[in-house]
């Protein structure tokens, strides 16, 4: 029998719906960092981020009886988070993309401590902010949050094909924008990681 640490998100959610209160804390511990990262990319204040994370999980609690046993939890949770983020920006009266001036107030995309990587990070953030919202959302969910195309299609309520088209256009545009942001528009350096 698997321990609670080995249980899938869906099994934990099923346990929570069935009344196991401890499952909620486990779901939070496992998924809150991903939700933080989703919000931190767009929001400046740590308090704002924390507040939205709490709201996301409060909604998960309130909507738990809507969760279908055959559904995947992560796209379900990310749809809640994305909707709350949109509502938040609607209340503030601005687009999700923050201005570049606010870059230093936001969480880095990749915390490396390496100055060169930080420059790359700032360029990446600027490039992401210039993508159309639909493409940007798909790339964030696909690359940074690691959702599968099928999970993303659930989260953004679009077909897998449409999501792949958005991803393809977004990655292409991102590459172009990143190349333009380098001095002299130099081609990208060798990819990090060394396997390709």
């Amino acid at each position, binding site marked *: 029998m698997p321990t609670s640490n080995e249980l899938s998100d869906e099994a934990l959610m099923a346990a929570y719906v069935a009344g196991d209160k401890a499952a*909620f*804390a486990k779901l*939070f*511990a496992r998924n*809150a*960092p*991903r939700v*933080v*990262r989703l919000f*931190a990319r767009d929001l400046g204040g740590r308090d704002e981020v*924390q507040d939205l994370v*709490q709201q996301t*999980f*409060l*909604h998960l*609690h*309130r*909507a738990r*009886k*809507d*969760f279908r046993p055959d559904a995947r939890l992560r796209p*379900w*949770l990310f*749809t*809640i988070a*994305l*909707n*709350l983020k*949109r509502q938040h920006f*609607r*209340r503030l009266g601005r687009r999700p993309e923050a201005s570049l001036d606010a870059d230093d107030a936001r*969480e880095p995309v*990749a*915390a490396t401590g390496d100055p060169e990587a930080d420059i*790359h990070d700032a360029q*990446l953030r600027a490039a992401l902010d210039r993508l159309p919202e639909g493409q940007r959302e798909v790339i964030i969910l*696909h*690359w*940074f949050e*690691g959702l*599968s*195309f099928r999970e993303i299609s659930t*989260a*953004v*309520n679009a*077909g897998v*094909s449409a999501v*792949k*088209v958005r*991803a*393809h256009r977004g*990655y*292409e545009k*991102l*590459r172009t924008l990143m190349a333009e942001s380098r001095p002299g528009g130099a081609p*990208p350096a060798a*990819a*990090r*990681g060394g*396997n390709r």
Partner: protein
Amino acid sequence: MSAHTPPTSESESIVDLCDAVRDSFRTSAALSPALSEHVAGCPLCSAVTQANLPTVALPAADALQPPSLAGERGARAWLREQPTRVRLAMATGLAIAIPVFWLLGAPRADLGVYPLARLSLDLGLLLAPIALMFPLVFRPLHRRAVPQWVGAVLVFSALVATVVLVTMPAAHWAHPASQLGVGDDRNARAFGCFLTGAGSAGPLLVGLWMLSRRGQPLWRLGAVAATLAGMVGGLSVFLHCPLTSPAHLVLGHATVMLPFVALALLSRSRA
């Protein structure tokens, strides 16, 4: 295949291969021969590999606190945690019960002489926006939100329907009760209808608030919910009041919407 046309096959194997390529690159793992072959023929995966994106560290979890569920007690908490289909059924039941209360308890006296075609038109103008607004009000947050303009169009349509309903020529003058409210008693009768309509809409508004999962105060329930409640109030007074004078309908029936339109505007204002 053009540069912007990635393979769109819905077959599981292709989709899974694309995800596997992404996973390999995110974790700096070596690509298997099968994945390398896939990348060579897949524009999307080529774009992913050429984007040169960094791997990502997750923030520490120990600094995060789960939300307190201490406030999730009582009748409202119980209602809003019911499945969406149950909450929708409860709200629909309430929205049906209120007009039916008037229809059965104190129906308009002129129903027997009201032209059928006009009755169908009037009921259609009232019921269509109500039927369209319910699914929007109860769209759960775990489904992607519909664009904001959809709600705005529904609210606008409901207001147009109300204006059309009260500004059309009188449906008939064939019943003595329908001829009232055009003399000295105009304001008093109009005020009575306003109270009837607004009083009928109020319980539905409270019901929608009790069933809402968002936890906002009643006055920020939302433009569509407020308009929906106002329309049910308008339907209630339509089923109860036999007066057909357009002046009475404007003063006594259309004004039922006013407090709810005000609520709708308040809901749309920024916090």
